[in-house]
């Protein structure tokens, strides 16, 4: 009963696991993103590193005040990443054409690593393109942070009991509520280095800019393909790896990478019991056969011993019989001889009598 229950439970888990992956591996189906999903195009060649986007982000997301004010541009001299108090940061890089600036925040992947690896489904890829996080489900395992290829999610390490994962939401809530029409960083940007719009349109815009100014731009829209595509897109005059964007990530999304190992799970659950049960049954059968063979051997040995003993007995009996017969014969012979001798003696005595 227990076993059946357990196996049933496991089977159910296996099935949900397969369904949960949207059976990508099996069907060859690909997810090209929500058709009307929005995104942001960041043009590094327009960015002047004023950090106004950082300030706006801090304000609209009600994040704690920074250690150094946002108008302190010396901050740009050291490379920074997003953290629990900053959903976005601008970094300065020494480019071939002079200083280059790059804003970084959650890239809102089309197939987000964080969402696919979260074991409580705390992340959601929304139809508007944003990836949002629900702190009310989060256990705090931080696998999302491990899995994110862009090193974006940050953690409230100093909160002992209710720490949250912190990351850019593309101002999803504020836009839903109508408080904002575009993410805070986009609205504030004085140089229009950020454009908010449908991802499809943004790719066109980006291509158009490259086409019109081929010497100004790298001929690549970063995020169009990277890690399966992101809703935040980048244009740059410098090589992307020189402004802190890895070029070696590949175009395969994390859900695609993990679908292989995931697909094996229900197979193991389905086949192992039969396989192991089979091994057990074979061993049991082997033991049984061995036992039977042993029994048969013992029986045969016993019979043989018995037969041998009987034969020996018969032989002995036979010998005894013969001995007895011989003894009788001997006795008879002796008796006869004695009788003959006695007769002779008698005859001789008679002769003597007659002679006398």
């Amino acid at each position, binding site marked *: 009963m227990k076993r059946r229950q357990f196996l049933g439970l496991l089977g159910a888990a296996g099935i949900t696991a397969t369904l949960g992956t949207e059976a990508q591996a099996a069907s060859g189906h690909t997810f090209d993103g929500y058709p009307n999903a929005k995104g942001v195009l960041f043009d590094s060649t327009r960015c002047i590193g004023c950090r106004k986007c950082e300030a706006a982000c801090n304000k609209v997301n009600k994040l704690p005040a920074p250690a150094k004010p946002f108008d302190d541009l010396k901050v740009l001299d050291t490379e920074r990443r997003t953290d629990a108090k900053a959903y976005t940061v601008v970094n300065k890089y020494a480019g071939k054409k002079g200083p280059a600036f790059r804003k970084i925040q959650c890239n809102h992947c089309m197939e987000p690593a964080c969402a696919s690896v*979260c074991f409580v489904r705390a992340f959601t890829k929304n139809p508007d393109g944003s990836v949002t996080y629900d702190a009310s489900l989060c256990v705090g395992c931080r696998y999302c942070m491990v899995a994110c290829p862009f*090193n974006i999610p940050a953690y409230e*390490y100093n909160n002992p009991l209710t720490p949250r994962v912190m990351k850019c939401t593309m101002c999803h809530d504020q836009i839903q509520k109508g408080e904002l029409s575009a993410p805070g960083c986009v609205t504030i940007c004085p140089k229009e280095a950020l454009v908010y719009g449908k991802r499809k349109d943004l790719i066109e815009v980006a291509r158009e800019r490259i086409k019109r100014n081929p010497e100004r731009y790298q001929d690549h829209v970063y995020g169009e393909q990277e890690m399966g595509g992101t809703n935040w897109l980048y244009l740059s005059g410098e090589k992307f790896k020189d402004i802190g964007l890895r070029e070696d990530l590949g175009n395969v999304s994390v859900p695609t990478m993990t679908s292989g190992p995931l697909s094996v799970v229900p197979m193991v659950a389905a086949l192992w019991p039969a396989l192991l049960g089979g091994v057990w049954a074979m061993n049991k059968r082997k033991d049984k056969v061995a036992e039977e063979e042993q029994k048969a051997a013992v029986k045969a040995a016993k019979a043989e011993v018995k037969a041998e003993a009987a034969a020996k007995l018969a032989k002995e009996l036979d010998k005894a019989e013969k001995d007895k017969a011989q003894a009788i014969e001997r006795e008879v012979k002796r008796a006869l001889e004695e009788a003959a001798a006695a007769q002779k003696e008698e005859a001789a005595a008679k002769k003597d009598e007659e002679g006398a």
Partner: protein
Amino acid sequence: MTTENNKTLFTPVNIITGIFLAIGLVITVLRFTKGLGYVTNLDDNNPWGIWISFDLLCGVALAAGGYTTSSACYLFGLKKYHSAVRPAILTAFLGYALVVFALHYDVGRPYRLPYPIFVSPGTTSLLYEVGLCVFLYVTVLAIEFSPAAFEWLGMKKLRNTVTKLTLALTVFGVVLSTLHQSSLGALYVAVPSKIHPLWYSPYLAILFFVSSIPAGLSMVIFEGTLAHKPWHHMMDKTHLDEHEGVILGFARGASISLAAYFCVKLVAVAYDNNWAYLATGWGAWYLLEVLGFVALPSMLYAIGSREKNIKLIKWTSALTVFGIILNRFNVSIVAFNWQLPSSQRYFPSWMEIGISIFVVTVGVTVYRFIVSRMPIFFEHPEYKDAH
């Protein structure tokens, strides 16, 4: 050695245990009042430290003795290993219980640990798979272990009912172990961009599963060696008589499974054509792991079992256990974030190490308590020949 000697509680072992436990309790208070940031060196780039590498990855791998021993005895028909089953099940049960215990320190909101199973299952996550299997397997191990406790408590009826489940539990235990041992490796399949190519492989799941077999077998040998002296008086004739056979048999098994693991390791390098990396510093480190702690112990085990050299086998078991720990650390810490500058790399804080030692100490203490009382190294006189 044991506390019930009535002489004194202040034996050297008990004093050291007490110190470790006291330090651990202090760090525990700090962890839950000041947060992870205060006690650990974790940061946004390095979200997983030694509490994952050692307490989870190594803990689970080294507790593999449970499923390997019980399947050898009950499924593969090697009944001469029967006396090794109970110690192995006990170690596995304690190992997994401690894994779960240690996770309460590492996750941000430990009170939500049941969420993935009961509230919001994230079935696309390999961590969900690990969580579900570990949860079920701890339950299985608890049931598998319970007859020893029932015999000790004199609960005959329960004991006899549970022992009838042995076969089903063993099969289920192997299914669960296959799944979560491999899934622990598969956790890292998601991050090819962060792990050095020599340690990253799409085969990580298979590598972790295959290596768990020699890890488990070696732990049984290693632990048997450690337990033999202090609890010699607790061991019955069967246990002592079978002991050498267990060591020789397990050494053969470990030798073969290490050889298989070595082959999978090579395939993993060949699959992505990563041979060129072998000529780098990372390559030297990789070769040290693969030659020094996989190929070498495989050979030493073979020699040891052939020449019936028990001493060599025992040392080899320690070498293998160390090698498995080295591998798990390499994947999850050393080769993880290898491309980051050294200033952004992770090294554990003393308090993280303190908690790991604390967790091991708790385990050893509970182990000592149990083997000094319950029928682990001997058969309970009332149940002789009951199997």
